């Protein structure tokens, strides 16, 4: 009896030790796995964010270095700049001109791609080609096509009898040109993401709807769009964040890189760059940091608004049906 109890005790003790190790493993591993991300992100993502806030409180010249403490003075200064507000307006205008048509076009393309195509992969790869062209390259190409006096677009317009458009001289045309560049690059990418979402919708729904007599269009609006809600939200949010930050395309739109003599196409990120490194009165890190933080807050607010709008616009009934099944 005692031997049995003894070995039983020993067995219990061994199990307890490895069991403890195992439980420690289970408890600690998750934190270990996410820590590389958080450590690296802390260094390269959070630290700049916090340090920018610090820099924004000082007079800080690029070569002269840290100057006097000015508190919110830089923010006041930036918010008082007409050019800043122009940049803000431009950024929103370009964003709307690009995001709205882009999402709609991407939906349509995804819907067509969702069907039973021949040579599926060819079509799907084809729409993604613009994505691999660097924005700098896209800008060099398009800014030439959109040149005011000798560009391809204006030449075509005049040859069919319309008057040429001031792509580089007027504000809205320049926004259209830049939005075209952005759409060129991102529509295919978003179409594929939406396609992935569409492919996840069970075919049964469509078949059932067809048996019920619903046409293609009706199916699209009643089944596809509601089921795509999470994907749509994702696409819209990422387009928002990206769209409010564009730099490459407007920067390379002309040789000066200042966004036009009347700041026609000056975006917020260009404004930040010019304040920090660039031409007229450049070198003021304090101002640039303040502007960067304002941009960040704007992105957060606009992102949240977009989230709410999208959730409201796209009905939630079918989505909840899907989560139940």
């Amino acid at each position, binding site marked *: 009896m005692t031997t049995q109890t003894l070995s039983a005790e020993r067995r219990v003790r061994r199990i307890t030790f490895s069991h403890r190790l195992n439980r420690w493993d289970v408890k600690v591993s998750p934190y270990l796995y996410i820590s590389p991300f958080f450590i690296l992100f802390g260094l390269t993502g959070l630290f700049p964010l916090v340090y920018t806030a610090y820099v924004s409180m000082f007079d800080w010249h690029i070569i002269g270095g840290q100057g006097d403490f000015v508190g919110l003075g830089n923010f006041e200064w930036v918010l008082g700049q007409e050019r800043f507000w122009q940049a803000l307006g431009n950024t929103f205008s370009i964003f709307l001109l690009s995001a709205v048509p882009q999402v709609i076009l991407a939906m349509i393309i995804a819907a067509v791609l969702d069907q039973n195509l021949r040579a599926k992969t060819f079509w799907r790869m084809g729409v993604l080609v613009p994505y691999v062209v660097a924005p700098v390259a896209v800008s060099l190409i398009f800014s030439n096509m959109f*040149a005011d006096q*000798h560009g391809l677009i204006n030449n075509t317009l005049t040859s069919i009898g319309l008057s040429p458009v001031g792509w580089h001289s*007027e504000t809205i045309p320049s926004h259209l040109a830049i939005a075209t560049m952005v759409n060129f690059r991102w529509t295919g990418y978003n179409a594929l993401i939406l396609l992935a979402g569409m492919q996840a919708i069970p075919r049964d729904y469509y078949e059932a709807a067809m048996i019920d007599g619903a046409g293609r269009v009706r199916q699209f609006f009643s089944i596809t769009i509601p089921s795509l809600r999470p994907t749509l939200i994702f696409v819209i949010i990422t387009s928002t964040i990206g769209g409010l930050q564009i730099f490459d395309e407007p920067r390379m739109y002309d040789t000066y890189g200042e966004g036009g003599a009347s700041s026609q196409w000056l975006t917020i990120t260009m404004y930040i760059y010019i304040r920090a490194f660039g031409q*007229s009165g450049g070198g*003021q890190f304090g101002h640039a940091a303040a502007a960067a933080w304002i941009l960040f807050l704007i992105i957060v607010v606009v992102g949240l608004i977009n989230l709410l709008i999208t959730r409201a616009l796209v009905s939630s009934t079918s989505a909840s049906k899907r989560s139940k099944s």
Partner: protein
Amino acid sequence: MSTSRRTTAAAVAGIAAFAMIATGCASTPAGDDKEITLTVATFNNFGYTDELFAEYEDANPGIKIVHNKAATSNDARTNYFTKLGAGSGLADIEAVEIDWFAELLQFSDKLYDLSSDEVDGRWLDWKSEAATDADGRLIAYGTDIGPEAICYRADLFEAAGLPSDRDEVAELLTGDWDHYYSVGEKFTANSDAAWFDGAGAIMQGVLNQEEETLESRDGEVIATTNPVVKDAYDSVLAASEGLSAGLQQWTKDWEAGFASGAFATTLCPSWFLGNIEGMSPDVTTWDIANVFPNGGGNWGGSYLTVPDQGDHKEEAKALAAWLTDPEQQLKAFVKTGNFPSQVDLQTADELLAVTRPFFNDAPSGEIFADRAVAVTVAPYKGTKYFPVMNELQNALVRADVTKNMSPAESWDQFVKDVAALG
């Protein structure tokens, strides 16, 4: 599956290791080795050709020269100040333009002392004084200056019934700016082309003939209140209404205008000759007239500096001295028309004999030597000159090129922008 994952992991680890080794190798200074690489950064066109550098390399074995060019002085300036702030990344020799030279002089402690007996007396006093900092160190060597003449399209002149021979044109255009504009009106009455390329270029010509323009000598920005500036602005824009082709410098449309004959004349500093040739290679009717409104003016002119952050400052200094030696500068003049700032050269026979085949064999040496002598005013350019001039150019573009605003509105915008420069 796990094997292929392992091989993939190994491959990528290999690449990463290779990357570290490659970048590590790249960052060891080459100074201890036999070959030294000197980087020379210029902008636009200094007339330094590969053959010229090859000459130096042959005469100085162990030195290799790499030449980087920025498109415009603007880009060079942005790069200079950014890298100065970063503490690294500048070339061994960096070119600086007169318009932002004073701005750079504020940080003269970051530039290498280039004083030497070898270059004593090489330049006119005002050129070398401008390059000396408060401690008496010579921190830049002058390269060229920019005496202006008038370049014109002989074919367009002829078609409009004006004389096209360059001496006759010189006589025709002798006078002040109003006279220049009135000849222009006669031209445009008989031609579809415009008289000059854009208000921006003319403004440069006008302002460079005044002593105090955008800043006062005690360092204040007076651009918005100085009547000299406002008068120039008003008169240039008034003339531009009928005479300007409405083009902004260094844009695609402006370049195309040289080839397509959009305008008949342009203000021609000597360093611009190479640009014209590049922009309109197929045109054979460009010529240079030995004249300028009000006699003469200087636009531009550059220096070479050696930043203190470089690794081979003494070798760079030697190269800079060689490049700005009259012999080399003459070669640059022949190549692209950059008129030398070196005193001896300005009256030398070899210079006066130079002609320019593209411009109908115009005697460019003589012409620009005459124009250089005609320069009477050296405008004051302080630390804020460049940014303020940039805003003034923007104001002219708004009124003349894009026509977004009326001249009055554009001026108001200019006043606000200058205030915002802080």
